């Protein structure tokens, strides 16, 4: 079996293993070239024919990924039920077969995919829920970075605040959702029955502190401020247009104290002008 044949064989086996209806039903769909490659490819032995033998891999392929996604998206699965989740993953894998070396990444496209899937017509919040669950996966093993404490706030000279930008913890994710999906997410975490979320703009912050991932709903104003990556003077200006200058300054001070305490901040670095 030369290199070109090896490649054709592996492509054929990959296609059959990933076939959603099983190997037997995929065989009639093969091209003549593929069919001739398949015939006699697998050594017959005992009571299991070639199709049954390859089906062992086909089943393992689907259920290994299905189980990984069920672990990463427990609230999505609880919302739509195991059978629909099974069908959702079948459809998802047809559109987005894994291209990563790790199962950890296999759900990366599910939040977008589910928004256009038929399940979202019955559960219109399912896309937001999947987005939240994926943010939790990402926050869990995002890069480490030392978080600053309250003393760091005092170390920034008063006149320099406006020229600094916040260095956010790499695990921080800020989500703008159309539904209050953190409610059923929390219920799923606690093993409770899931309520339908309300249709209301909801800002969520997801982040990791002390190896635990946290999810918190925040007011829209704070949601917009979180993750702000320009000079703090710009943030203060934008906030002042909403709250007025004095109230904006007080709000910023309160936010910084809370963000630092919550482990969202890794520093306040000078903004460098681009040449």
């Amino acid at each position, binding site marked *: *079996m030369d290199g070109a044949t090896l490649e054709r064989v592996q*492509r054929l086996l990959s296609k059959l293993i990933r076939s959603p209806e099983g190997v037997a039903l995929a065989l009639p769909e093969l091209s003549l070239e593929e069919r001739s490659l398949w015939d006699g*490819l697998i*050594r017959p032995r005992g009571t299991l024919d070639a199709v049954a033998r390859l089906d062992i891999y086909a089943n393992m392929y689907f259920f290994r990924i299905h189980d990984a996604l069920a672990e990463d998206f427990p609230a999505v699965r609880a919302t739509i039920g195991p059978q629909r989740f099974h069908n959702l993953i079948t459809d998802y894998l047809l559109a987005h077969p894994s291209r990563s*070396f790790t199962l950890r990444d296999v759900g990366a496209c599910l939040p977008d995919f589910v928004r256009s899937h038929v399940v979202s017509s019955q559960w219109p919040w399912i896309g937001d829920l999947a987005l939240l669950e994926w943010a939790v996966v990402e926050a869990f093993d995002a*890069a480490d*970075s030392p978080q600053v404490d309250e003393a760091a706030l005092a170390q920034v000279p008063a006149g320099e605040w406006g020229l600094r930008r916040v260095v956010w913890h790499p695990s921080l994710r800020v989500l703008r959702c159309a539904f209050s999906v953190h409610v059923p997410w929390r219920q799923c975490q606690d093993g409770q029955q899931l309520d339908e979320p309300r249709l209301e703009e909801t800002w969520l912050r997801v982040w*990791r502190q002390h190896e635990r991932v946290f999810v918190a709903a925040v007011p829209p104003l704070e949601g917009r401020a979180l993750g702000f990556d320009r000079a703090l003077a710009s943030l203060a200006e934008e906030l002042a247009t909403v709250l007025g200058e004095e109230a904006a300054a007080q709000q910023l001070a309160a936010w910084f104290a809370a963000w630092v305490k919550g482990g969202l901040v890794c520093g306040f670095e000078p903004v460098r002008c681009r040449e």
Partner: protein
Amino acid sequence: MQGQRRQDQRQLTTTTVATRAPNGKFLGFGIGLRPKHYPEILDHWPQVDWFEVITENFLVAGGRPRRVLEAVRSHYPVVLHGVSLSIGSADPLDDDYLGRVRALIDWIEPAWVSDHLCWTKVDGVNLHDLLPLPFTEETLRHVVERVRRVQDYLGRQILLENVSSYFEFAQSTIAEGEFLAAVAQEADAGILLDVNNLYVNASNHGFDPVQYLVALPRQRVQQIHLAGYADRGTFLHDTHDHPVWPAVWELYRIAIKRFGLVSTLIEWDAALPPLSEVMAEAEKARAIAWDVIYGWRDSRTGAAVAE
């Protein structure tokens, strides 16, 4: 090439038992590091000789997985065991993946690094499974060349594990054991002998597992895996969800006779029992190895003892 492949095929009729590790790196009897056991390990630092970790689980940017690995490494020898090298794939080697593995090696300094003699992806699509290769001269050349490149890139020898399989290619012209031996010899790689996989394949494909052991060059076998399979009636399934079966222990005994003291590891992934049960399996392996090598047995029961 045929001569090389056959040079170590002596029969297992000799009473001489190899007593030393083939490469001087004998870590003892270890277990796989699994998240369910993290709390107990980190709280009590149990007496485990060494841990094997799944490489890909730690190719992440940060967080708890890396912190746990760092802590475990500070207390125990650690070996990296990959599942995504895809050494037999028709796809090019994945430079990004190899770069990450090399960075992990530099950071954690494992005793050695292993992966599987198989393919897992083609056209960039990963099946996340360990698929068998056709055992032909062409595949052998393909794999050997890639193993050499991987070893050059990582700056170290790797070990390759025999995988369990549920079909064989009709075009295979080389016996599986001879193919594994040839890859190891010609690429100057080590062998991770999975005794459970060997038993499963011998049953599924109808060959003699002892002849397979005979085909493997002694000095290349650096690690042994033991695990439990599930009997599906028409085939044996490598599920890692059972204790090691008696027939696999028997085959392990023969392997130790053949290869001497080889670092041995219990793999248990599904239906994972408490840590103490997995550790007890490692102690069983120790007792068998000690019995084979030194003839140590319990004077009252006649059972093999660990020490």
